[in-house]
């Protein structure tokens, strides 16, 4: 039977960029374990010669011309309207790199 440990839950939360309280960690450990164990029933299905499905209407690649349709683009002001953190017409984000200290 599949079971998730507390460490599994904390690892997954880190991958998913989700912060959990201690109570949530306990709750999700129990709940996700019960859901994952339920899915063990899929081990009874014979799937060795079956292709996986990702798309149901049989489409593969859909192409369009590499041209800009100005009716389909937002103006710079519109694109920035969802945030207050802007700088000179750009989104302002936290730095992800820091200056090297050994230089």
């Amino acid at each position, binding site marked *: 039977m599949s079971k998730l440990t507390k460490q599994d839950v904390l690892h997954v939360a880190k991958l*998913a960029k989700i912060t959990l309280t201690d109570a949530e960690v306990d709750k999700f450990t129990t709940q996700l374990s019960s859901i994952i164990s339920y899915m063990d029933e899929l081990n009874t299905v014979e799937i060795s010669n079956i292709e996986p499905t990702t798309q149901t209407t049989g489409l593969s690649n859909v192409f369009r011309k590499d041209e800009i349709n100005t009716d389909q683009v937002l103006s710079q002001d519109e694109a920035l309207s969802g945030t207050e953190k802007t700088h000179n017409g750009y989104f302002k984000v936290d730095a992800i790199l820091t200056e090297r200290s050994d230089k």
Partner: protein
Amino acid sequence: MINNQIPLTIKETKEGLLKKKFSAVELVDQYLAQISKNKDLNAFITICEDEAYKKAKLIDSNLQDLSLLGVTVAHKDLYLTKGVRTTAASKVLESYIPQYSATVVDRMEKSGAITIGKANCDAWAHGASGENSDYGPTKNPWNKEYVPGGSSSGSAVSVAAGLSLVATGTDTGGSIRNPANFCGVVGLKPTYGAVSRYGVIAMASSLDSMGSLAHTVDDVETIFNVVKGPDGYDSTVVNPKHETRNTKKLKIGIPKEYFVDGMDKEVEKSVLETAKIFEKEGIELVNISLPNTKHAVSVYYIIQPAEVSSNLNRFDGIRLGNSRESFGAEAKRRIMLGTYVLSAGYYDAFYLKAQKVRSLIIKDFDSAFEKVDAILSPVMPTPAFKLGENVNDPLKMYLADIFTAPANLAGIPGLAIPSGFTKKGLPLGFQLLGSRFSEPVLFSLGKLYEKVTGFVPQIAK
């Protein structure tokens, strides 16, 4: 004047306006009054009073014969509405104002529809009861102690309680058919790829289907004809090629796997009575088998959270919205579940296996539709349940998707239709499933059912 009698079909609404029996402004007056009288249902997150009156005045000043003339619509709050706050019922988007409208919203407005408000729903469309909204649960208008179903909870309640004539919804694993069933209204989940998803906040991209709720089959058909077809934005949308089976006599399949132990007796009886009604009209009933139905919940709760975790990854609080701290419990649960099944070491055991079993579920339907024109089944295993009854047991709640999720996994259309009430006065209903792009077949069967049963639309009291 309307005499406090709100028209309950698109046809009555349109004819009343064109013949000047009432004005669009009077209609909006009536619906807004009805909304304010029913605040306790918590059907709306945002009410579009100013926008609705503006549109109504425009309609009154230039009456045109449009398909949805004066039709008030509640858009599920996953549909982007230009200039009108769109939250997905999540605190992450509590102050998000879209810069553009969804294709469905746009096409409906161009056909004369009046957007009356943004309907409450389970946050990010995650739920089967309407209780997962960060803006509080919606209540069933037939009995306020019961859930309205979900995730398109506010949409179904809005139609059932007469707060709008029609509503939009999204159906990823049953989110239109389930609340339609619990609230006694008609709900259409179109074929995957029939209606553009552009401008609708994505839940699970291989399953999401944009549909509508109304009082009659005729009305969801009218809306479907307005919103369907390619829009140049959603590349999965195609013009349908549906070949009807080459037979004189229509056949409806009754899948034995959809009548299982533990399902509610009143639900079962009502669906079997519906089958008899079709049989009496000369339609042949055929016993069929969809053997992989029993795996649908496992497959669905692997593929769907996997896609959810990917789609919700973009909400980082940088370009719009609040930070990921604002996700509610159910969103966190699905993001975690999805991330787990996609993570290194588990991908083959869960995600890939689920995609393969998905192929088997599709094969079941494809073979069935070689023999029958439509499949008749229950929508939910029980009628509406009480608020709070299942909130602490997510697995139990997930299992209730057993009859709805297969249609999404296979990408086929489903039409939920009301068929009466339980002894306790809660709505009962059934669904018709068809092969890909067979919506016209489902509409004609649905209309036949309404005609022979003498169905008359009504507002929940």
